[in-house]
Structure formats: structure tokens, C-alpha cells
């Protein structure tokens, strides 16, 4: 199983954000996307997740256990926002996402309790999500990645609100995921603490497309 992207380019509004990006990630490896603000890291990740249409090029999962129509179905996307409801308890949130996601073929998610255990926040699942601090909320959003199996993790600034120990915890989670044969793509400024990862450097405003108007 490999994730292959060929000649991707994408627009935000009328402006071409990036052009002709190609890469290939084999199973068990991670790609870290680096670059200054506005270089299109988030846009690239959203294109990969299928949330934005690509202007040109394709991204697909080659030789997966089951043919994937849209790459997004095989992905977990951890964006800037946590996608958890403040009014519901952590438990209710995670149980909902576990049921709604379902498992992608080729793996199984762990139970909610185990997931919470592995982000180090056991004992507060009965609290409403809104009661947690920003860092705790982020960690619970990471637990969401664990409750359902997806081969590809797309992570946008995953460790922005976290302290050093939580960052190390998260690096552990990603390593475990890779060891299970997963793929991870992360956009970040901070060093993730992962070893032996590929890097993609976005230059920003690489090609300014010919203006239509």
C-alpha cells in the first residue's frame, strides 16, 4: 500500500496556492510538510482529505486492501478544530465518532477506554468536553484517531496547543500507527519527535498562475 500524489495544484479563491506537487509514501512511513505561513500546507492537506478539489493532479491509495473511491474515506483528518461537541461528555463524543466512522478494512480501532488511556487522560471521560482545557481537548481529539481504524492520518498542526510531554505522547501514537502499517502526513512547525521521516518543503507562492482576468 502506497499513497501516491502526482502533479497536485490547488487554488484558494482565484490564487494558485501551490503547483505541481508530487510525492509517494510507502506503508509505515510518515511525511512531514514544512514551510512558512501561507505556503499552502493546510490547503495541501485538505486537498488530500478530499475537502477541497484539486485544480490539477491526483492523489490515490495504491494497492490498498480494498479499492478506494475517494482518498478521504481512508483518512483520519485532524484539523485545527477538534470536531467534538462541548455539550456532550468526552465519552459520548468518542462513542459517537467510533460508531459513525466504522473501521476501514485492514484494521480495527481500539475501545474508547483504551484510546483515552493511551492519550493519558483516564478518569475524566464522564466530563463534558467543554470543561477540559485546550490541551486536554486536543488530546481527546487525538483519541478520536484511535477509536476507528484508518490507514492514513492527515494531521494539520497536531501539537499546536500541547506541552512537551504531550508532544512526546503524540509522537508515540504516530509511531505505533506507522508500526501497524499506517501512513501519516503532518503539517507542522515544531519537530514532531519522529525518526526517519520524509520531508516535503513548501516554498510558498511557487508558481503564480496566469491570471484569468
Amino acid at each position, binding site marked *: 500500500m502506497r499513497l501516491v500524489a502526482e502533479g497536485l495544484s490547488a487554488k484558494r479563491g482565484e490564487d494558485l496556492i501551490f503547483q505541481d506537487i508530487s510525492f509517494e509514501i510507502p506503508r509505515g512511513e510518515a511525511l512531514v510538510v514544512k514551510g512558512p505561513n501561507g505556503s499552502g500546507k493546510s490547503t495541501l492537506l485538505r486537498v488530500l482529505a478530499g475537502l*477541497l478539489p484539486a485544480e490539477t493532479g491526483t492523489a490515490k491509495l495504491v494497492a490498498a486492501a480494498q479499492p478506494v473511491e475517494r482518498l478521504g474515506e481512508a483518512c483520519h483528518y485532524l484539523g485545527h*478544530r477538534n470536531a467534538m461537541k462541548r455539550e456532550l461528555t468526552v465519552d459520548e463524543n468518542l462513542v459517537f465518532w467510533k460508531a459513525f466512522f466504522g473501521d476501514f478494512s485492514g484494521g480495527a480501532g481500539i475501545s474508547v477506554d483504551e484510546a483515552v488511556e493511551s492519550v493519558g487522560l483516564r478518569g475524566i471521560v464522564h466530563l463534558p468536553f467543554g470543561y477540559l482545557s485546550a490541551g486536554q481537548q486536543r488530546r481527546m481529539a487525538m483519541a478520536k484517531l484511535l477509536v476507528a481504524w484508518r490507514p492514513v492520518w492527515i494531521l494539520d498542526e497536531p501539537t499546536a496547543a500541547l506541552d512537551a510531554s504531550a508532544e512526546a505522547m503524540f509522537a508515540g501514537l504516530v509511531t505505533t500507527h506507522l508500526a501497524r502499517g499506517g501512513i501519516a502526513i503532518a503539517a507542522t512547525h515544531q519537530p514532531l519527535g519522529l525518526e526517519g521521516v520524509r520531508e516535503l518543503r513548501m516554498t510558498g507562492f511557487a508558481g503564480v498562475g496566469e491570471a484569468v482576468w
Partner: protein
Amino acid sequence: MIALLARDLKLSVRAGGGALIGVLFFMTVVAVIPFGVGPDLNLLSRIGPAILWIGALLASLLGLDRLFQAEREDGSLDLLLMQETPLVLTVFVKCVAHWVATGLPLVIASPLLGLFMNMDEVAIGATTLTLLAGTPAITFIGAAGAAIAVALPRGGLLVSILVLPLAIPVLIFGVSAVYAAIQDPAPFLPPFLILIAINLFFAVLGPVAAAAALRLSSD
């Protein structure tokens, strides 16, 4: 899907949920009408069904803008969009949950308000029945408007403006079915069946349009 239904219902009854507000708005709107037209019971019983229908229409539009906006604000919408389950189905389930939380209370409250309007038993029964058949259609077509306005900063008002014209057929056949039930010569069934047909049609059209709009407005 059942998980989504359960979650949306839970959210609507938790603190800050909109389940109570719609029916309260309905009651208030209907209650102020007599102050405008006067307490003449004969007049009120004549215009009662129409007032109940207009009140229900406005009340069911009230919470619609939050249908997708709340999901968008906390990032859940992205994840809903990515899944293998067809987006149309997801939207449909969200509509059903929204109707159960806000539309059904309106239907339940309508007989009570019918008494305030001095309507007789037949009129009350007919109004309740037509509201039961008609309010889901408003929610379904409203979902399309809510999806279109999801990314807009002041989407709430816009949703009402967009959806009200689209909901006119529902109002026409709902009210005419009630009056057909009260006044003898006109038959009740044809407008009522047309209302149900509109309902079924919107149950397909609304989610499809909403799903398309959500995909396009994602950024």
C-alpha cells in the same frame, strides 16, 4: 447513522439546545395575533388554521441555520464530509433529528393553540394532521438553504429569506386541506395527498441539494 441521530437529539435537549425555543416562538407568535386583530372569537376561529400554519412555518425556520453551522464551527462538518456513508444520507438523518427535536413539538403544541383560537374539534384535528404531514417538508427544503448559507457570517436571516419562498407550496396545500376539512363542499383528501407528495419530494430534493451545497462550500 443511528449514532448520528442519537447525538443530534441529545445535543438538542442539552443546555443551549434549540428544542424548546422553536415551540416557544410558535406559542408567542400565535399568542400576539389576537392583539392585532382583536378578540372576536368568530374571526379568530376563521383565521385560526392559517395563523397556526404561518406560526409553525416561521418557528420551524428558526433553528435551521444552526443545522450545519454548528457542525462547521467545531470542525465536525469536515469529518462528516469525508466518510464513506453517502453525504445525502447523513444530511437526511440530520434533518430527521432536527424535525423530531423542533418540528414535532410544534405539532404537539398546535392543538393547544387551536383552543386559544377558538377552533372546533374538526379544525384542530385537521390542522394537527396537516402540520404533521407538512413540517418535515419545511425542514427538508430548509436544509438546502441552511447548507447554502453555512459559510456566511450572518447566515441565520438569509436562510429564512431563501427558504420562505420555497416553502410556499407547503403552506398553500396545508392550509387549503384544513379549510377543505372544515367547509363541506371541498374534499379534504386531494390537497392532503398533494401535501404528502410534496413532503416526499422534498425529502429527496432537500438532502441532495444540501449535500451538493456542502461539498461546494467546503474550504
